[in-house]
């Protein structure tokens, strides 16, 4: 809502020294979001005067038609001689009154005017367009032609009201009444403690039976309809300058006198109005819901098929308007031919929800619908109609028809009962009853009662329905800035949950290991799964899909973190960073296959446990995962020596890092699983409640995937379900007993078939060695067909033995080692290397 300060002053006697900025501050404090204060004509300097065109000479031979004019500007140029001016516009004739800027003046934007040579002539000033004067587009695409009554030499800055301040207010949905000068003036009046000159206080004739017939068939959709008729309009009459200027400053474009007047009254009182050409309305005006398949061509020229929920205005033939949204073309006032001499004025009140739905359904938001959606004062309808009639009579020479039609559905004003100290309790401030009552009265409420206040809210405040709404009014008018600052005392808390601590720990551990966190969008499409080489029936292809995705290529939610994370890897690589280690933790979305559309629940009471369970059952499974991707060097080459490329083992190690933080034992097995290299893919298992559960995969990516996704060669990746690791976690660490007796070390080299996993050999050694084994470490893997035989490998382990209570003898240590080797031989066919 754009509010010219000069217009606002008409209804509130603001102190003369108050600037727009001052008013802005006051209104912001009262809860109006005044976003900007526009300074109109701030850098404008005269002389800028009314002139009359005396002669026009058409100059030939230029790319565009140019006129050399002489203009009478009276004594404004100091000489009284005609002013010679070159002008490129053509929408004027000899004798027209125009706006002339003379040398020495400055136009908006710091544009200084001086006599200058142009098109072979000297131009002593300019004939001005509305745009050049910062008035906004007036639709003429030419210079301003003033009505003939203005005297030559008159100051045009004053005449055109070029200097003003305009407050631009973003009106919140609860303050529909502030979509009018009347509403903003009311707030300003309260803020300044001045009386409001309410423009809706007009004498309105009582309704009678002679007005234009109106039939409202849907009194819920339309609880009020006022119709007034004005005849004998002068079709030549144009909107006076003051009217045009107010509309322009408020952001609207002047169109024709009748339309301008309805817009003006809407801005003034907040009541949307519609004027029908009476000669084009056939029979009674009706209000009803549209019938199936009915069509209407609205004023914007679009033919719309109506829904049976749409409220329409009709005449005998059918719909002539989309109620509260936009009129129909078939009864439009003729503003081009200028033939309209009789109008019917509609000032009605419509159901906000119906209007909101219709506006959205037809993607048609108008000044009218914006107001009806937010609530229009139903009591202002007859005043608005009267104001429109008055202006048509005054400005268009019309005659008000004696007929006054008013259809009103009976309703009672809303009352709310609150304890007098309710605002105090909400605010934490003792305002006292007197203040509460005074503030409520200021906003237009009637207040009765002592300890219990019975508050009747004004007709323009449809947003006031609950006790807290009234509390807010009191608190905001007393000033949010005056609220004290106190601290509540919550119960002692428990800190973070185990799960929350785990999430933080995992992030720190991975960052500590050199990984950089990336937070990627969860959107993806089938192409991502194709690139990953997933089978057609891979469960990861079963996705949650969005109705309105940002991109049609990516309509689904991720079932794996890898596409997003690999995208970030590729982006970094493309920007010249080739040694990369990234991680992400986040939710993936897996349809359960059992989602049911939940029943629409009321929101006025707590749902039952069954209802809540049904809501949760509608949701996909959303486990939290962690993933890493690696490419390039894991260790850089440098003065210290060679670097090391990242490889599958780093990916598996990342899983171990995460598992360690969770206190979960990670079981690693070879697997073949897209998108990983079939020979370099580890399946990662954990034990949950005694059961081994697959929690994720790690390894090097399949070369085909690397190629398809344009990734660096040998990109590696790991993805694991954090929620499972959390469940597999050990909880409290039990402190080990530390023996201070000496250690006995024994090395063994075992030869096994190549496919035998080292993890199995180690497990057998560990178990066979028994309790004396303190630690075991694989320190070498060796393959040599000549020495070991084809398809064999040697695994060298260092075993450390120690007893808690004595120094081990060589025989004891050897016996334990022999038992370890024996079990490894039995389980894995391992042979001690000779």
């Amino acid at each position, binding site marked *: 809502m754009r509010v010219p300060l000069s217009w606002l002053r008409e209804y509130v006697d603001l102190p003369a020294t108050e600037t727009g900025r001052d008013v802005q501050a006051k209104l912001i404090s009262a809860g109006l979001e005044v976003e900007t204060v526009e300074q109109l004509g701030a850098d404008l300097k005269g002389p800028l005067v009314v002139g009359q065109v005396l002669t026009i000479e058409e100059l030939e031979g230029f790319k565009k038609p140019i006129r050399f004019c002489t203009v009478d500007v009276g004594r404004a140029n100091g000489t009284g001689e005609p002013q010679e001016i070159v002008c490129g516009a053509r929408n004027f004739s000899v004798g027209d009154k125009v706006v002339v800027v003379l040398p020495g003046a400055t136009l908006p934007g710091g544009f200084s005017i001086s006599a200058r040579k142009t098109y072979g002539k000297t131009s002593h000033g300019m004939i001005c367009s509305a745009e050049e004067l910062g008035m906004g587009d007036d639709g003429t695409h030419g210079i301003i032609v003033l009505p003939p009554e203005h005297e030559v030499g008159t100051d045009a800055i004053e005449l055109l009201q070029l200097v003003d301040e305009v407050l631009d207010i973003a009106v919140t949905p609860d303050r529909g009444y502030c979509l009018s000068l009347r509403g903003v003036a009311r707030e300003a009046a309260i803020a300044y403690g001045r009386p409001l000159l309410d423009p809706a206080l007009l004498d309105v004739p009582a309704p009678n039976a002679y007005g234009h017939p109106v039939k409202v068939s849907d009194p819920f959709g339309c609880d009020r309809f006022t119709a007034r008729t004005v005849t004998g309009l002068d079709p030549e009459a144009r909107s006076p300058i003051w009217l045009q200027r107010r509309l322009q400053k408020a952001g609207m474009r002047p169109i024709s006198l009748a339309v301008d007047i309805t817009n003006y009254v809407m801005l003034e009182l907040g009541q949307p109005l519609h004027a029908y050409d009476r000669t084009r309305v056939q029979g009674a005006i009706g209000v009803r819901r549209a019938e199936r398949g009915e069509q209407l061509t609205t004023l914007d020229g679009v033919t719309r098929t109506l829904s049976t929920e749409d409220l329409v205005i009709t005449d005998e033939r059918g719909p002539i308007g989309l109620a509260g949204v936009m009129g129909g073309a078939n009864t439009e006032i003729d503003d081009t031919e200028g033939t309209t001499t009789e109008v019917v004025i509609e000032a009605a009140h419509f159901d906000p929800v119906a209007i909101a739905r219709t506006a959205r359904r037809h993607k048609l938001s108008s000044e009218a619908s914006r107001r009806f959606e937010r609530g229009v004062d139903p009591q202002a309808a007859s005043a608005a109609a009267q104001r429109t009639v008055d202006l048509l009579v005054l400005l268009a020479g019309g005659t008000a028809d004696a007929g006054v039609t008013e259809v009103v559905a009976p309703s009672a004003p809303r009352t709310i009962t609150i304890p007098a100290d309710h605002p105090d309790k909400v605010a*934490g401030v003792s305002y006292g009853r007197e203040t509460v009552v005074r503030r409520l009265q200021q906003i237009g409420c009637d207040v009765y009662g002592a300890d219990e206040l019975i508050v009747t809210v004004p007709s323009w405040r449809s947003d006031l329905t609950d006790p807290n709404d009234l509390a807010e009014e009191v608190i905001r008018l007393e000033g*949010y800035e005056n*609220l004290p600052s106190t601290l509540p005392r919550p119960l002692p808390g428990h800190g973070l949950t185990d799960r929350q601590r785990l999430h933080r720990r995992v992030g720190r551990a991975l960052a500590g290991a050199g990984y*950089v*966190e990336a937070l990627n*969008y969860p959107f993806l499409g089938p192409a991502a799964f194709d690139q990953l080489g997933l089978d057609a029936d891979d469960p990861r292809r079963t996705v949650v*899909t969005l109705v309105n995705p940002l991109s049609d290529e990516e309509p689904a939610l991720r079932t794996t973190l890898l596409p997003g994370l690999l995208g970030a890897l590729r982006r970094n690589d493309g920007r010249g960073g080739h040694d990369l280690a990234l*991680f992400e933790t986040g939710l993936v979305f897996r349809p359960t296959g059992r989602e049911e*559309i939940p029943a629409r629940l009321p929101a006025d009471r707590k749902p039952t446990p069954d209802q809540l369970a049904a809501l949760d059952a509608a949701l996909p499974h959303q486990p939290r995962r962690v993933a890493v991707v690696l490419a390039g060097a894991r*260790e850089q080459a440098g003065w210290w020596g060679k670097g090391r490329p990242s490889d599958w083992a780093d990916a598996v190690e990342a899983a171990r890092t995460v598992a360690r933080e969770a206190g979960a034992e990670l079981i690693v097995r070879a697997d073949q699983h897209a998108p990983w290299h079939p020979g370099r893919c580890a399946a990662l298992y954990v034990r949950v409640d005694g059961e081994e559960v697959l929690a994720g995969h790690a390894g090097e990516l399949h070369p085909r995937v690397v190629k398809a996704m344009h990734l660096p060669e040998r990109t590696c990746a790991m993805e694991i379900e954090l929620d499972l690791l959390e469940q597999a976690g050990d909880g409290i660490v039990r402190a080990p007993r530390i023996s201070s007796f000496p250690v006995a070390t024994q090395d063994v080299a075992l030869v096994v078939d190549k496919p035998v996993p080292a993890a199995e050999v180690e497990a057998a050694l560990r178990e066979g060695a028994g309790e004396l084994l303190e630690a075991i470490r694989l320190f070498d893997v060796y393959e040599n067909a000549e020495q070991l035989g084809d398809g064999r490998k040697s695994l060298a382990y260092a075993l450390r033995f120690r007893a808690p209570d004595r120094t081990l003898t060589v025989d004891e240590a050897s016996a334990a080692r022999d038992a370890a080797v024996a079990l490894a031989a039995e389980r894995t066919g391992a042979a001690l290397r000779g």
Partner: protein
Amino acid sequence: MSAPNKSYDPVEVEALKPEEIERMRDEALAAFAAADSLDALHEAKVAHTGPASPLALANREIGALPPHAKADAGKRVGMARGAVNKALAARQGELEAERDARVLVEEAVDVTLPYDRVPAGARHPLTTMMERVADVFVAMGYEIAEGPEAEAEWFNFDALNIAPDHPARTMQDTFFVEGGKGEDSGVVLRTHTSPVQIRSLLDREPPVYVVCPGRVYRTDELDATHTPVFHQIELLAVDEGLTMADLKGTLDHMVQSLFGADMKTRLRPNYFPFTEPSAEMDMLCYVCKGASVGDPDRPCRTCSSEGWIELGGCGMVNPRVLAACGVDPEKYSGFAFGFGIERMLMFRHNVEDMRDMVEGDVRFTRPFGMEI
């Protein structure tokens, strides 16, 4: 070694003559002093203190002396040997110190060599910023609550007093999840973390003090100041007798914890369906502290010389929201607020482009390290 000879005259034994012993001692001392390396010293040591050295041989002669002469000669030889050993040790110490000093010099390195063998990792500043804000409240006794990102509409809208015709429910802002057969699924990507507040109220008995950090979604295209996926933190307190003054105090405490003790907040009336009264909250500009207002010579980029930075929305929990969660609005009241983490990161750390936070470029993230 010769046997003791009782009639033997010590004076007659050449090697035990006092001047002879002195000579031996002086020769040894001279040799040690002349040794310029540990090896040379070792040779001198063998020559002058070894078993074949003159003093050792002289010592051996003592046994052959008659008893009366033994003590005298022994004393002389012993003193000489003592002096020699002392000199040897001293010279040994000197030479070792010289050697050590030389070796340490030789072992010196260029300690300014860079070492980026495994470059440091980092957590995303949005993650650590959320944690940092949450921790302010955890320290006050609040708990952290979490919830699903694909959320039932009832939690995201209805329970928050956002009626079915509220503009926020239209396609403009919200990602809707497809149901089967073109039907409405009743599931959306949460547009704020407020549904977690609802879940918290349903799960617990008041008093409830929770903060809800998390990822939220709106259908905005990514540009320098918008992202369709962003992060919020919201707070909810429901207890007996909570007031707007408590809300104000809690906000003040938060900005003081995050930006310094002289910080404060400002509330401006606003409208949200889930709070009543509602307010927009601003914090004092932590850079200029308001000094840039009306002073064109000292413009502040952080607050555009407004003096205040817009943080987010807040208010008293609408009693209708409490009712939807089965909390008696007659007995309990509450306050809530929420704000965007991206925005806070932008003004706290001078991030100029929202895209830097979503692209995962390690050059952006690394400097933020582990904590923020």
